[in-house]
């Protein structure tokens, strides 16, 4: 069935096949790039909205991997991305912390834990709910096996421990942000006001959107660039 091989037709067929295939993929990449980016952004926005109380505007800090959520002039809280090594690989969380240093809620961004065991860290309601309003000043942030107050997932102590560690890391980032804000003092307040002005201007360039939440996410994408 197949043609007889000689150098010319081998080079020609392989070359043409590769050329056509790369052209197809380049086209597909161009078409799907926007939806892929939109899906990723939507996922992040949903995670932030899930871990913090209602806010109007969120600004990303690339250096510290956190989002500062504000509602007008008031600071709503920080949504901090925190990645640790779990049982099966990296475990990435979004941890929402309100200005009074209480964890508002947490959300799993990505994980590679064992299905049926550690993977429950993103589905088990009992485990997830204990992070809502978790106050590290009152409760000890480590699993019960280590003498803390965190209920571990059955048979998944390592995952639960990693989860607690990720929250602890997020709190450390929060302390750093809070510390900086304190040192900056009065000057800091001015800077925050200035930032908001810039964000507001960027928002004005966008088309007017009825949904205020969507408008804010647009703004946030804008400031990411």
């Amino acid at each position, binding site marked *: 069935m197949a*043609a007889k091989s000689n150098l010319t*037709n081998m080079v020609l067929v392989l070359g043409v096949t590769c050329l056509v295939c790369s052209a197809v993929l380049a086209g*597909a990449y161009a078409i*799907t790039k926007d939806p892929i980016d939109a*899906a990723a952004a939507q996922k992040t926005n949903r995670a932030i909205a899930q871990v913090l109380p209602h806010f109007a505007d969120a600004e990303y800090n690339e250096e510290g991997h956190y989002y500062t959520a504000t509602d007008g002039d008031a600071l709503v809280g920080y949504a901090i991305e925190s990645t640790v090594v779990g049982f099966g690989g990296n475990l990435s969380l979004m941890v929402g912390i309100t200005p009074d240093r209480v964890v508002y809620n947490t959300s799993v961004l990505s994980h590679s834990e064992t299905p049926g065991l550690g993977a429950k860290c993103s589905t088990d309601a009992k485990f997830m709910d204990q992070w809502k309003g978790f106050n590290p000043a009152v409760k000890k942030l480590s699993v019960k096996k280590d003498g803390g107050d965190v209920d571990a997932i059955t048979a998944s102590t390592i995952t639960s421990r990693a989860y607690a560690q990720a929250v602890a890391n997020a709190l450390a980032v929060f302390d750093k942000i809070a510390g900086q804000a304190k040192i900056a003092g009065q000057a800091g307040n001015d800077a925050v006001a200035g930032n908001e002005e810039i964000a507001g201007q960027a928002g004005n360039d966008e088309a007017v959107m009825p949904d205020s939440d969507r408008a804010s996410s647009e703004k946030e994408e804008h400031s990411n660039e």
Partner: protein
Amino acid sequence: MSNKLRLIADGLVKNNPTFVLLLGMCPTLATTTSAINGLSMGLATLFVLVLSNMAISAIAPVVPDKVHIPVYIVVIATFVTLLQFLMQAYTPAMYETLGLFIPLIVVNCIVLGRAEAFASKNGVLASACDGLGVGLGFTCSLTVLGLVREILGSGSVFGYNFIGGNDGMLAFVMAPGAFLCLGYLMVLFNKFLKKN
């Protein structure tokens, strides 16, 4: 027409890739932790199988013998990458669950196996039917295997929990349970096949 239907039926039963040919065992064992995962993996493979079978049967007459494997692999890899882009864009949740196993469809022996054994020797339409049949066979097997493992391991069906808790027999969600379920399903399938 009956000939084409015959091809599809063969792929589902007589040439069933999982229970009879024992091809593609890696994704079979790894992705069937739940029925929905098995189903989506099966459908992803089906998509690649039909398209690559069609493309390869169309180009087979002009492909020189000595480079046919590289050419087939490039064609298959193109469709897999295409699928990956599409899933990432429109079904990000499913893409996350299947993750690693989507690029591995490239080296799934079912796909290359059908290209070699069938598509390179037959017409485009017949190859499409063969791909459809084998793909459906793979999808059904993976869904059934995923369903059995999900019922035993998590006590749920397609994500709907019926035992009111998360405590199934965990072994069935993990690798040993995959082998056990596969073995017993294979026995049942072949017993049924021999009877008819």
